[in-house]
């Protein structure tokens, strides 16, 4: 039996360490640890709730915007603020742009090198490469010359001996299965996607002033509409939004999705690996009729238990019996005992590192071993992310989702069960990107129609002044980050933040075992994964990357009775 440690897990956001036990070429035990914390919630205490979006947005710069969105919703929920329809549409447009950019970057720059062997691309026949490329898509950059030029550049790069980001990869590993030509296509699109992604985010720059970390606003959106002024959203800005979404959709339809299917067709065995948990949670998002009308969300809200797609169970963030967090294996103390779960509104955590003194070789996995806490829904572990969203939508009867899922399964000639896997997760991400690119255009059309009809409202200032607020208020704001279900909880007292907590997607997925010893998503998905060469555990990266880890710490810290209490969560 071999203990294999992968630390740092690269091509992710944040600091993640994986330790596994391997026996007879398969993983039989796994431990996931977040190894960095910062201290967000102690910092948030006492601040102006209207500022919280800016603080929490800094939880993550990769899925930038999602915490800001959860935060403004949380404050609006607490204070009873309804935002104008245009502001909801602006938030939806920013949400869509975020997914379109982030999922493409994940596929090409964070995940692809687990499947694409860069060195093998050097041996590809450019003519054959061109034929394959043209057979799967009508994307124009596909001539033999294009691939031959790229190959020459790549060869020269490799021959320089300075391999930069490609140095020391698992090139030549037996688990790489793509033909050289498909590898060359992968490298070409890796570079094209790098160019493309910086265009997509310009949606955020127009509506939020910058990216990463665009601006949000409690009560609406900061960008004013005035079709007769140069200093507001006018026809030029709207035309630019339209072009950005058109171009974005074209790349997704003609590059990302064909590549995804092509790669998947060579790795169908991964449709039977990495399934892990059997419960899925989605908070839902993209309100088509305002955030209060949950039934009209493009992504429905709900829970699936035991992979039973015949039933979707409701989830409620206000119900203190539903979502609770545990610290049995996390570096914190609970005053009520470390085996009792606490709802985020009444949660308490005292930061207490009891791990090995650095430098260390192994964590003490029988004790506490992570800075992540362990969230549970009614005691159940949940997978969150693109697969959970897709399954909840599928089970809720969403026709658009049903169509893309069914046709993809048919194209790949795999059974429905293949969804519950490493490959299923990666495919779900692509399929939802396709849908979102379509929905973005609907939202933009609606936005323009509103303006045409004379509605330019973007902000509700009724509760802007703190003097209009109640002495005490509590709120929950939910969203779907690209990586999964994200929620913030706030308690406002005397115009200030009294308590603020984040339960983030990678906390659900990457957390350590709970009070009963049950695993969360990462650990569970690794069990049974084959590892051909423990010295080069490529297969571990495949399954972990299929979740798109985002581990930057969102840290829950607050003060209770004069004593600093820290609740740390990792994202």
């Amino acid at each position, binding site marked *: 039996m071999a203990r294999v440690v*992968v*630390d*740092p*897990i*690269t*091509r*992710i*956001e944040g*600091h993640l360490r994986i330790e596994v036990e391997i026996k007879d070429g398969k993983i039989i035990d796994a431990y996931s640890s977040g190894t*960095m*914390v*910062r*201290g967000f919630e102690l910092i948030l205490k006492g601040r102006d709730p*209207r*500022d919280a979006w800016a603080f929490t947005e*800094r*939880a*993550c*710069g*990769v899925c930038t915007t999602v915490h800001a969105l959860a935060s403004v919703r949380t404050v609006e929920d607490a204070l009873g603020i309804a935002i104008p329809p245009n502001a909801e549409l602006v938030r939806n447009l920013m949400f869509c742009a975020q997914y379109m950019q982030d999922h493409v970057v994940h596929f090409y720059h964070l995940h692809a090198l687990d499947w694409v062997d*860069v060195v093998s691309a050097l041996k590809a026949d450019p003519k054959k490469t061109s034929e394959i490329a043209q057979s799967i898509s009508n994307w124009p950059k596909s001539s033999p010359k294009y691939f031959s030029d790229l190959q020459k*550049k790549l060869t*020269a790069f*490799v*021959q*320089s*001996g*300075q391999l*930069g*980001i*490609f*140095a020391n*990869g*698992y090139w030549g590993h037996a688990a790489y299965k793509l033909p050289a030509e498909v590898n060359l296509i992968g490298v070409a699109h890796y570079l094209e996607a790098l*160019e493309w992604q*910086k265009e997509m*985010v*310009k949606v955020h*720059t127009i509506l*939020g*002033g*910058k*990216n*990463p*970390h665009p601006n949000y*606003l409690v009560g609406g959106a900061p*960008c*004013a509409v*005035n079709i007769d*002024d140069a*200093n*507001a959203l006018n026809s030029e800005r709207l035309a630019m939004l339209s072009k950005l979404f058109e171009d974005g959709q074209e790349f997704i339809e003609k590059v990302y999705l064909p590549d995804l299917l092509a790669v998947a067709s060579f790795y169908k065995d991964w449709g039977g690996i990495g399934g892990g948990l059997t419960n899925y949670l989605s908070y839902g998002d993209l309100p088509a009729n305002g955030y209060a009308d949950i039934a009209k969300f493009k992504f429905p809200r709900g829970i699936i238990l035991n992979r039973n797609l015949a039933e979707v169970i409701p989830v409620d963030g206000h119900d203190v019996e539903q979502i609770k967090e545990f610290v049995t294996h996390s570096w914190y103390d609970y005053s009520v005992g470390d085996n009792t779960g606490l709802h985020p509104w009444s949660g308490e955590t005292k930061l207490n*590192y009891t*791990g090995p003194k*650095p*430098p*260390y070789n192994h964590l003490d996995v029988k004790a506490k071993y992570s800075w992540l806490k362990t969230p549970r829904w009614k005691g159940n572990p949940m997978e969150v992310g693109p697969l959970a969203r897709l399954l909840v939508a599928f089970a809720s009867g969403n026709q658009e989702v049903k169509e893309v899922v069914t046709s993809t399964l048919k194209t790949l000639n795999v059974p429905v069960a293949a969804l519950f896997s490493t490959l299923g997760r990666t495919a779900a991400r692509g399929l939802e990107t396709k849908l979102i690119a379509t929905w973005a255009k609907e939202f933009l059309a609606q936005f323009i129609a509103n303006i045409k009809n004379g509605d330019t409202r973007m*902000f509700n200032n009724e509760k802007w002044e703190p003097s209009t607020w109640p002495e005490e208020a509590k709120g929950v704001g939910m969203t779907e980050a690209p990586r999964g279900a994200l929620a913030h909880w706030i308690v406002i007292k005397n115009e200030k933040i009294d308590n603020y907590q984040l339960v983030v997607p990678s906390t659900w997925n990457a957390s350590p075992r709970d009070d009963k010893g049950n695993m969360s998503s990462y650990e569970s998905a690794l069990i049974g994964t084959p590892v051909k060469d423990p010295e080069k555990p490529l297969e571990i990266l495949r399954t972990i990357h299929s979740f798109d880890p985002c581990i930057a710490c969102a840290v829950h*810290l607050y003060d209770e009775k004069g004593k600093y209490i*820290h609740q740390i969560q990792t994202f």
Partner: protein
Amino acid sequence: MNENPVMPGVTINENSVTYWEEMKRQGYSRRDFLKFAAWISAFIGIESSGVGKVVRAMETKTRIPVVWFHFQECTCCSESFIRSSHPIVADVVLDKISLDYTETLQAAAGKQAEEALHSTMKKYKGEYLMMVEGSVPTDDGGVYCCIGGRTALDIVKEAAEGAKAIVAWGSCASNGCIQSSRPNPTGATPIHKIISVKPIINVPGCPPIAEVMAGTIVHILTFDRIPQLDGLGRPKAFYSRRVHDTCYRRPNYDAGLFVNSFDDENAKRGYCLYKMGCRGPMTYNSCGVIRWNNGVSYPIQSGHGCIGCSEAHFWDNGPFYQRLASFPGFGIETTADDIGLALGAVTVAGIAAHAVSTNIKKRKLINAEVENGQSEEKGGE
């Protein structure tokens, strides 16, 4: 030609590659190359007579090894860096440096990633550039950030020893940013407070503008020396002007035209956001000049005040929507060095002086706004 140690079976060309050679290889013409050199020159503020020097430098320099660390951060700096917008930057600048260690993008993980790091640190001792994204927690022996079982504190000290120079990306590495704001629970510390033996370039911002990041790297590569820095270690080229002094809405300030509430009639006309809490008057950055994401917009242009994200301790300078009671206003030729570090504790006379120097006719109006603002703030507390 030698056997390649990290990619067996692939030979290494002993002759190192210059920018020009590499651009040729990537299909760029000599004309493209000269345009690129001219753009870079303009970008980093070199007069046209100096373009020749840039061209020569780029023809003869090899790719400098870079190790890029991630500590207490959110990766917004890396994300901003890959947004670098000039057409050639993604193709060329990314390839001009040899990014031998970066947890965000590198193919290798775990042991192989650490080997790549140590191989570069050994082979290029004294030559590699060290780039740091994130602050370093120093409380409790540094247990709040560990990579490969070692503390960030340990890693940063070791890597700094052999580095030629250090670039501290973003507000986290250059001033501690959010995790160091009140009450700084993990002892988050910027790099310059840990390392004192190496030149350190602070490139603050949350994140910094992509082209500022690229421009800083290009400056180092082209001239083989670090850019001119101000007293806070920031490249003068990008941090010597206040956002307020380069803001296209500045004439509205001078004319006393202010937004009074988000989305009001004045907001729809793009008036000054000073009364909405804009931190432009105390923030040194290039947002008003370079703008964001290839010049598309910047926060003020999109209707939200500047939150001052490139200034030290900006998180504790809030609430963000409360207008500045006063700020120094000694004219647009004044740099941060002249004003010093007194930004958080400026005198009331400051804004009056600013008003006088900007627009005599509107002096009364602006003074009235300021006094009104001060009394409102007092009333609010």
